[in-house]
């Protein structure tokens, strides 16, 4: 692992229209293997920042650099949306195969690869099912499999489990950690849940709204990958309290400002 950042944001801003400053002057270096969460209230520009990193939105000012990788993957970035965002007309297999199909790879050449990734997310039995036949958690797994099938180095996730129940959510959190660890991924995970961010990440970036900006950069001293038991330890609670307070501080400051 070298020391250059894999993603570097330099004074990045995003304006919608004339006055809506969704992201204001964010600079950030992300190193390979980091599991970063963007934590903040809704409307603070988390999604906007993530989409700019993914190249889905142009920046208004600043630069975003992603260190290019010597071609072992079809696509350096995987993106998981808040909704599963699957094609309802296609089977689980075809949904996961999509990125490879768009890269021009023949189905027969990559069948094994798609099946492997489906196995990794525990959906082997469902490769022929349609999305409507799956539960919310399973759809999310398909979405993750699709993001990982191109063997990206970077995984971007935008509040992926916000709509799921607590149990499914913590299970998927563990799966994401496992997959990130196994595949040596650099992850940016957007969430508005303090516990989720403390459990998952090696570094928490706290953001505030109006204008969307970075207010705290908190590296986590903690065992990673986390074990489920860690959730019940005093250290976990202490970390969560610390993050919570920082977050609250930014909210109050924001209230006074406006």
């Amino acid at each position: 692992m070298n020391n250059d950042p894999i993603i570097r944001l330099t004074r990045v801003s995003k304006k919608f229209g004339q006055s809506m400053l969704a992201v204001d002057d964010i600079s950030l270096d992300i190193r390979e293997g980091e599991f970063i969460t963007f934590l903040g209230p809704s409307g603070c520009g988390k999604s906007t920042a993530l989409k700019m990193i993914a190249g889905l939105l142009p920046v208004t000012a600043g630069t975003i650099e992603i260190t290019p990788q010597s071609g072992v993957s079809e696509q350096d970035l995987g993106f998981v949306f808040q909704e599963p965002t699957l094609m309802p007309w296609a089977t689980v297999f075809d949904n996961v195969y999509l990125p490879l199909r768009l890269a021009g790879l023949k189905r027969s050449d990559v069948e094994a690869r798609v099946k492997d990734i489906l196995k990794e997310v525990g959906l082997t039995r469902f490769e022929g099912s349609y999305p409507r036949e799956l539960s919310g958690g399973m759809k999310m797994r398909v979405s993750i499999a699709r993001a990982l099938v191109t063997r990206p180095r970077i995984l971007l996730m935008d509040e992926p489990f916000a709509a799921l129940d607590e149990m499914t959510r913590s299970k998927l959190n563990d799966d994401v950690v496992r997959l990130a660890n196994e595949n040596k991924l650099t992850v940016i995970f957007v969430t508005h849940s303090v516990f989720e961010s403390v459990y998952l990440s090696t570094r928490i970036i706290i953001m505030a709204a109006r204008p969307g900006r970075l207010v705290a950069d908190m590296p986590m001293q903690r065992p990673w990958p986390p074990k489920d038991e860690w959730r019940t330890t005093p250290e976990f609670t202490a970390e969560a309290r610390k993050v919570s307070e920082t977050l609250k501080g930014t909210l109050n400051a924001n209230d006074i400002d406006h």
Partner: protein
Amino acid sequence: MQTTSITEDLDAPVNTAQLRRAWREQILTWVMPITVLIIALGLWEYLVWHYEIPKYLIPAPSLIAETLIKDGPSLMASSWFTVKLTFFSLGLAIIGGVLLGALFALSRPVELSLFPFAVILQVTPVVAIAPLILIYVDSTFAALLICAWIVAFFPILSNTVIGLRSADHNLSDLFTMYRASPWQRLRYLLAPSALPYFMAALKVAGGLALIGAVVAEFVAGAAGQHTGLASRIIESSFRSEIPRMFAALVLVSLLGIVIFLLTSWASRKVLGHWHESEIRREN
């Protein structure tokens, strides 16, 4: 590597209760309406016989059936003409509607400049345009075709445009991220997204094509052409051959029903495995 266990089980056993439910569904969709139809026909037959209603007012179903058989050959020829006209115009409406719809969806300026014409064509009653078209176009068949096409074309056009625009934004972003070519985007995202809209339009357009074909022929028939079922109806009306009128009417209805069943079947075939509108739910 550890594989996550899945708690949800989708393979519910096919049990007898389910089969029985499916059977009842079949009875409801087929046996019931047919029974009601037969009862209605029987009642009609009985009332005509009981009140001795003359056949030039309301012929009994048995007489209509008799006429259908007696005039079979000539009525069949007319039916064939109307069938050809309807399906030909529907085919052209599909081709024109989809191509123009795709063009509209691709280019806003094209849409803005051409859409008003499409609307004018749509809102002007075809009966009002038909005489003009019959004057300008030499071949009667071609003229009738144009009339029926005008009627059937619009729903396909407008639904194709809406459908092509209805693709999920996040999915569209995903295609951008994976650098999909325009062709891939059309093939794997836009076309499937548009399909439910297109199939809905097809069901409407199928019925409209028949209406267009019949109405146009009424106009043309008045000008002395005798070819399709509509002309048979007019001609029988002039000669007060009411049973024959009914017979032709029955054939027009049958054709309409066949078109409806065909388009519904196609829609179920194409969308049944994924789209809410065609998924059969058990409850």
